C-alpha cells in the first residue's frame, strides 16, 4: 500500500517516487500547498475507492498518516 501511496503522491506533486519517504510532507515538498493537498485527496480517494472525512483530510500530511487512514477505512 505504501508504494501505491508514494506513486499517487509522485504523480500529484510531479516527483520521482524514490524521493518520497514515509515522513515526507508539506514541509519538504514545495508543491504540497492547500491546492495540492486537495488534488492529493481526490487522487487517493479515487485510487483506493474510499472517501475521507473532513477531520481526516486535514491530517493526511505524510505517507505514514495516509496509510494509517486507509487501513482504518479498509477494516471498517
Amino acid at each position, binding site marked *: 500500500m505504501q508504494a501505491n501511496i508514494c506513486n499517487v503522491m509522485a504523480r500529484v506533486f510531479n516527483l520521482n517516487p524514490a524521493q518520497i519517504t514515509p515522513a515526507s510532507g508539506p514541509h519538504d515538498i514545495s508543491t504540497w500547498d*492547500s*491546492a495540492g493537498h486537495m488534488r492529493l485527496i481526490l487522487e487517493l480517494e479515487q485510487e483506493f475507492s474510499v472517501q475521507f472525512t473532513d477531520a481526516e*483530510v*486535514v491530517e493526511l*500530511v505524510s505517507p505514514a498518516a495516509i496509510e494509517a487512514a486507509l487501513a482504518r477505512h479498509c477494516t471498517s
Partner: protein
Amino acid sequence: MKPITIPTINNNDTQATLVEWRKAEGSVVQPQETLAVLETSKATFDLPGEVAGILHLQATPGEAYDFGATIGYIFADSTERDNFLAGQAGKSSAAATGDLVVTQSAQQLVAAHGITELQLRSLGKKIIKTQDLAALISATAAAAPAEALRPSQQQTAIARLVSRSHASVPKSFILKKIICDAALDRLTEYGKREGLMVGLADVLVQVVSTLPGAFPFFFGELRDDLQFVPAKTAHVGVTFDLGTGLFIPVIRSAAELSLKETAQRMMGLRMKALRNKFTSDDLTGGNISISINTDADIVLVSPIVQVPQTCMISVAAVQSELHLSAEGQVRTRRFFNLGLAFDHRVINGYQANAFLNAIKTGLDSPAWDAAR
C-alpha cells in the same frame, strides 16, 4: 387558501429555481411536509409546507422564480379548491395589449420568439392569432444574432453580487507588503508538530477574528441609510474557487477556534466546494471576508466589497526576493501582498492602513500557534 411562496434564502441571490415538486397536484399535505425542492446558485434545499390542506401547483419545475413569488396554494378543503379552479377557468384565454387582443397560443409564440408589441401592431390587426405571426417569426429568426452563451446560475448570482457592489460601494483599495519568513517558518513547525495541513489563510482567519473590538467598522453591516450595525464577533467569509465555481463560505465565531480547528474547518469547506456539498447555512452570515488567491505568481488582487459588508481582505501568492540585510549581505526573503478593499463611506485610508498593520502584527505575534 394559503399561498406557497419562495422564501428569501440568502443575500447573494434574488431567485431560486424550482427543481421539482415532491407532491402531486391535488394531493393532501401536512404541515412541515416537504412540498418542493428549490435551488439557488449555491445550494439546494427543501421547501416545507406551513399548513395542512390540498395542494395546488402554480409553477413549473426548471423555472426560476423571484424570492417572494407565489408558486402554489394550499386549500383548506376541496370546496375552496374547486372555487379557485373555477375562477381560473373563467378567465379569458386571450390577453389584451392595449387595444390588441392576442390569443393564448399566439401569446406562447410571442414569448418564445421575443416579438415586441410594436411588431404586433405592425401587422395592422386588432386580434392576433397564431397564423398571423408566421412572417414576424421568420423576420425575427433571420435577424437573430448567433446564440449567446448563458453563464451558469451560480455565475449569474456572482454577476448580481459584483454589479450591486460596483453600483453602490465607493470602493478604495490599499495594498501592503508583508514580509513573512518568520510566520511561514512557524507555520511549518506547527504543521509538523501537530500533523496538520495548515496554511497562511488559516492563520489570517485566526488573526482577523481577533480584531472586531479594535476595528468595529470593519465587521458588520452597512445599511442603505448609512446606519452601520457592528458585529460582536467575527464571522469570516473565505473565498474558494477550485474550478467548480466561486464560493464564499463562512467560518462562524472564528475567534473561538484554535488554529487546528480553523484549519479543519477550512479544509472541510474546501472539500465541500470540490464535492458541491455546500448548504445555504455554510454560505450566509459573514460580516467580513477574505479573498484568497495564493496560486503561484499572483501578485495583486483587488477584491469587491460584498454588500452589506464594509471591506474585503485579499491575499496574494508568497513570493521571494533578494534584499540587503542589516549587515550589508544579499539575502532572500519571502513576502506576500495583503490588500484591503473598503467602503469609503465608513472607512478611511488611515484606518485601513491601521487595520492591515494590525494583521501584520498579528501574524508575527506568538498567540496564533500557541496550543488552545
